[in-house]
């Protein structure tokens, strides 16, 4: 009886973690990092083989990966050259993704360790996926270090479903800086005149939108066909 209970619990947790693992891969791929479809669409059996230990529980500590930005992404996030800076560096760099084995809430210590790991290995961005919420001070560590490494945190339960796959969620495309300038010029707008999207909006979090970036939203409508709208991330 007991064993049965624990094994079904393992199975449920395995399935949860597998789904989160797939979603985070899809997310990283959608952001423009280089991941092959085999890496993204891992079947459950393969996932178990890789991360389950002898008694069937998943070792979160092993669930980690890094990904390099694609050429297109590097180009998209390279600011336009200026006389002062003729060869600007791309803002896109390697991303590090890690599942946190900590089960109780995440404190300063865990967060600092993650940030240090990212900066020591020259990762430009890091995503920490946790089973429990962050403490307020751990959240602060995350924002304080934002200038050096772009740190994001997701909870496992946020990633059980890929929200962008929902049919009612329209396609969101992040604009590069040049595309944004062109848009504002074409419509003679100030950026504050654009409609907004909150940076904590689930879609904004999925895409890793930063403040000031503009996202293009393509909707299809039976009456109007395809039409685009734009939102400024605030």
């Amino acid at each position: 009886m007991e064993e049965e209970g624990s094994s079904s619990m393992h199975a449920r947790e395995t399935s949860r973690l597998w789904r989160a693992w797939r979603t985070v891969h899809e997310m990283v791929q959608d952001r423009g990092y280089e991941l092959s479809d085999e890496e993204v669409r891992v079947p459950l059996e393969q996932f178990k083989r890789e991360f389950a230990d002898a008694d069937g529980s998943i070792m979160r500590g092993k669930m980690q990966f890094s990904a390099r930005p694609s050429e297109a992404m590097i180009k998209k996030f390279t600011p336009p050259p200026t006389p002062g800076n003729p060869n600007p560096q791309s803002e896109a760099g390697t991303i590090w993704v890690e599942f946190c084995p900590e089960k109780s809430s995440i404190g300063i210590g865990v967060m600092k360790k993650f940030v240090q790991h990212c900066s020591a290995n020259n990762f430009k961005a890091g995503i920490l996926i946790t089973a429990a919420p962050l403490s307020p001070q751990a959240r602060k560590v995350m924002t304080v270090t934002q200038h050096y490494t772009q740190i994001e945190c997701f909870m496992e339960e946020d990633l059980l479903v890929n929200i962008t796959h929902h049919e009612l969620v329209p396609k969101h495309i992040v604009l590069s800086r040049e595309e944004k300038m062109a848009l504002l010029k074409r419509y003679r707008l100030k950026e504050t005149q654009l409609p907004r999207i909150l940076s904590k909006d689930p879609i904004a979090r999925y895409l890793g939108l930063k403040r000031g970036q503009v996202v293009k939203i393509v909707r299809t409508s039976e009456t109007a066909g395809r039409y685009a709208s734009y939102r400024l991330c605030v």
Partner: protein
Amino acid sequence: MSTAPAPAPRGILKKAAVAAPPPAEPTPLPREQQITLHQAQQLQRRLEEEIKPPVPIETFERLTQLPRVRRPSLSAARPPPDDVREFLNAVQDFLPREYSDLIEERNCMGSCGYALCPRPRRSYEGEYKILKTGIAKTADLNMWCSDECARRALYIKVQLDNPSYIRKDGQMVVKLELREEEPKSSPQKPKDKVDELAKTLEQLEVDKKTQTTKDAASLAAERGDVGGLARQVEVTIHEKSDVAPAKAPEPEQEADMHLFIEGHKMTFGIDKDSDEESDDDYLPSTIRL
């Protein structure tokens, strides 16, 4: 409209006969008043400083590691003085929210939320826990190692929530003190456990009493009783002499019995006349305004 023309329009302004005296030179306040004013201004400034610089993360890290000295003779009730000083000095600058953050941060490490306690926090499972005193959320219980520590920690929190300021090195700081424990004997001598327990229980009892008096006082203040507790009324409860066994309530009309649901009679679906009759019973025949 047609009135006799007035000799001259009279100004509604007061006559400027009494010219305002030239602004007097501000007379220098006496020294004591100057000091008081200065202090008041400083206090005012402090209160206005709502955007206080946040407590650095390092401070939180430091305080999550307390107590530094861990010996069997030391406990949350008898914390090492150095730790006490460090704790109070740091927490003086805390906002209540930051103090809550500290508790949470310690909980993340598995420690008791009270910063001077060396013990791990409780780890009850489930959402609620049944206690002798009632039902409590396990999340609230799991913040501490014991109820005593919860009291100690909350004692600090209350002082941060309703701060009183004292002067220290020319600055106004929040007055903070630890909750009083049983009188300290020499820390080297290990105490008799039973004795200690008895004292703790005694302490608890005292707390309960002071709490009830406090509650009563605040209730009285809320009601506007000026006399407070002084005006307490002696209440004596007398037992009734003839006590018959209690009877269940019964509907009066036997005929209607089947129409009653939990003592209430349904009125719809019954013929009009009886309906109106019953209405008449409840409504006054005329309404006068």
